[in-house]
């Protein structure tokens, strides 16, 4: 049996990595939850943001500027994708949306590989994130602790924007009944563009935040997409609190399972996802009847 201190360490790590997962999945949550489009380019937008952040960090040596740059580049790419392709697919079946965004993802990843090559790149931890924190018996990288708070803060801000502002109200109304919102004199198409851009930006932002923890490889986006999808399904589609709950549950499953046998941690994640789909198809915090 694992010791109590190992259990507590993994419990804490589950929380921290869970909030990071929630942050990573926000882009998918925003777009899927509000527009109903399963954006398979989510992982690729994450990669675009991370590599843009890497480039700007190398040039400016300022991680804050890198975050802004990564988010902006992904925003612009997201806006172009929405205008050029995705807006033509809002009325189409989900399979079509998945295929077109998947195609976009392949193109984006190959562009990144073409520019940066396949050899892994390393973004150094920002100066203020250097060092190791001692929490009881647990030794934890300082930057990962900071990411815990960055994730929580970002999720709160996004929640506020989407649920407590008139923009959020219009977005959600537009999803429920876009014709009526149009009749009221609001340009729903523009709102959709803004939402897609916001989702893409969130993906890129998360990419830069995550970059000092991992090494960058063009294919890392695939794993990001899978993780995000699991988080959204467990937590509940279109629910921000759901994404946080889903993230933490996923993080805890991965951490606690690996305490016994890490080989089964991914398996357990999908077992839980399957259970959620069987017992509560709308997800833990999702509303019934929402697409």
């Amino acid at each position, binding site marked *: 049996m694992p*010791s109590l*201190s*190992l259990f507590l*360490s*993994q419990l804490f*790590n*589950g929380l*921290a*990595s869970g909030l*990071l997962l929630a942050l990573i999945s926000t882009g998918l949550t925003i777009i899927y939850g509000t527009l109903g489009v399963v954006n398979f380019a989510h992982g690729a937008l994450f990669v675009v943001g991370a590599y843009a952040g890497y480039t700007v960090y190398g040039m400016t040596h300022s991680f804050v500027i890198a975050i802004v740059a990564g988010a902006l580049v992904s925003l612009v790419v997201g806006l172009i994708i929405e205008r050029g392709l995705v807006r033509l697919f809002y009325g189409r079946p989900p399979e079509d949306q998945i295929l077109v965004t998947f195609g976009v993802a392949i193109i984006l*990843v190959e562009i990144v*590989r073409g520019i940066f*090559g*396949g*050899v*892994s*790149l*390393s973004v150094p*931890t920002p100066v203020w994130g250097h060092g*190791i924190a001692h929490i009881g018996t*647990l*030794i*934890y*990288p300082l*930057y*990962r602790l900071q990411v815990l708070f960055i994730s929580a803060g970002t999720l709160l801000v996004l929640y506020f924007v989407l649920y407590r502002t008139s923009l959020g109200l219009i977005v959600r109304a537009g999803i429920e009944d876009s014709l009526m919102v149009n009749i009221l004199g609001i340009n729903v198409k523009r709102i959709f563009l803004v939402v897609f851009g916001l989702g893409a930006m969130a993906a890129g932002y998360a990419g830069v935040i995550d970059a000092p*923890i*991992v*090494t960058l*490889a*063009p*294919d*890392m986006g*695939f*794993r*990001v997409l899978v*993780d995000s999808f699991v988080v959204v399904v467990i937590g509940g589609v279109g629910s921000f609190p759901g994404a946080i709950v889903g993230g933490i549950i996923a993080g805890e499953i*991965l*951490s606690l399972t*690996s*305490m016994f*046998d*890490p*080989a089964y*941690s*991914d398996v357990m994640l999908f077992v839980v996802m399957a259970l959620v789909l069987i017992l509560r198809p709308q997800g833990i915090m999702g509303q019934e009847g929402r697409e």
Partner: protein
Amino acid sequence: MDHKKDSNGNPDSGVDRRSLLKMGVGAAGGALLPAVPGMALAADKPAIGNYPAGVSGDTVFIGLTVDLTGPYSAEGSDEQKGYELAAEQLNAGAPEIKKISPLTKKGILGKTVKLGVIDAQTNPNSAVQAATRFIHDNKAMMISGSVSSAVAIALQKVCDREKTIYMAAISGSNATTGKDCQRYGFRMCYFAYTAAKAISPVLAKSLGKNRKAVYLVPDYTYGHTTYDSMKEFTEKEGWTTVGQQVHPLGSKDYSSYLINIANSGADTLVVIDYGADAANSIKQAKQFGILDKMTLVVPYMAPFLGEELGAETMQGVYGGSGFWWTLEDKYPIAKDFVTAFEKKFGEKPHDSAYTAYMVTALWADGIERAGTFYPPDVIKALEKGVKRDGPVGKVWFRGEDHQGVVNFPILRGKKPSEMKNKSDLFEVVDVIDGSTVMPPVGHFGCKLGSYT
């Protein structure tokens, strides 16, 4: 001869049966048979695989299933460069490749080598699809390319069925030339058993005999067999094994495994991860302060690990490798290879390119020695164990299991202050004589199948 085009010749996809028969008749009618040895043998041997259709024109096609995407994509694209250099030198009859394959004139038996590339995506299914396309659509006479042993094993199974020779590139698992060996499959490079047997005494000498090791293991055949071999040989040196963290290939977040490792009581971390996974897991291990408390060992080291993590992290780290470019100081053929590679691609070759280059050269040598492309004869020529000179000394295939007997270096990461230039990341601690670390014949249960 290589530029002369037969009237029925079709350089791209080979020739179908009927035109081949016509060509045979035409050649016989012209009484040219004795003057064209390849053609003479083509008439003597029964058809098998893509023989003789695949060599009825003036070209011979090699299908490359390299991983251009996925966690091993850096190695895959480096392999592609190695194949391109080998093909270029074979077609030109370059003196560099003649040192390895002395019977080579121009091309292979006078036929121009053509390469086709499909991304195997670090995925056995994609690799098998790619190989099948090469064999059926392009009449490939040889399939090559792998980084993952799961890919290599799947490919050599399908190639054995299709009677097409498969030359594995990188593959670290004991199973490739062990229980999963195939008559049509060959692997030249060092692997789990030889790496573990070679590095364990070096580790015991430099790090001591009372070490406690914990392992980070990717969950597939390469990871498991490398763990088994490292455990066996380090324990012979007096080390104890305190645990292993088996995790899925392509993991992104290693935090939970690393917390287990930090709590394992070990003083040595053995990372078996490869490619992007190795860079990612070691970077995260450093963040968790594990590398301050434990010594890092990478028995089967990914070729770009030094560049990916930098000397700051890799200094003092011991690792096995197939090749390192500074071997050029010791071996003239290594010098040839590094120079030609740098000239063509503007960078140093890594062990992925070296392996790809060498398996192509050795396959060509097998055909030249057999005097025919007829696959069973080529296989028998390769099985003869004729020793050739490679960039790291003598190299040959063992007939019983098709495992290459090849020397390879043990490396140690240099301190940043010791580096002469940015590529000077490792020092060669020792060059292992490959013949001294081979497993006994039959140790991993190899049973080769039929030639036909």
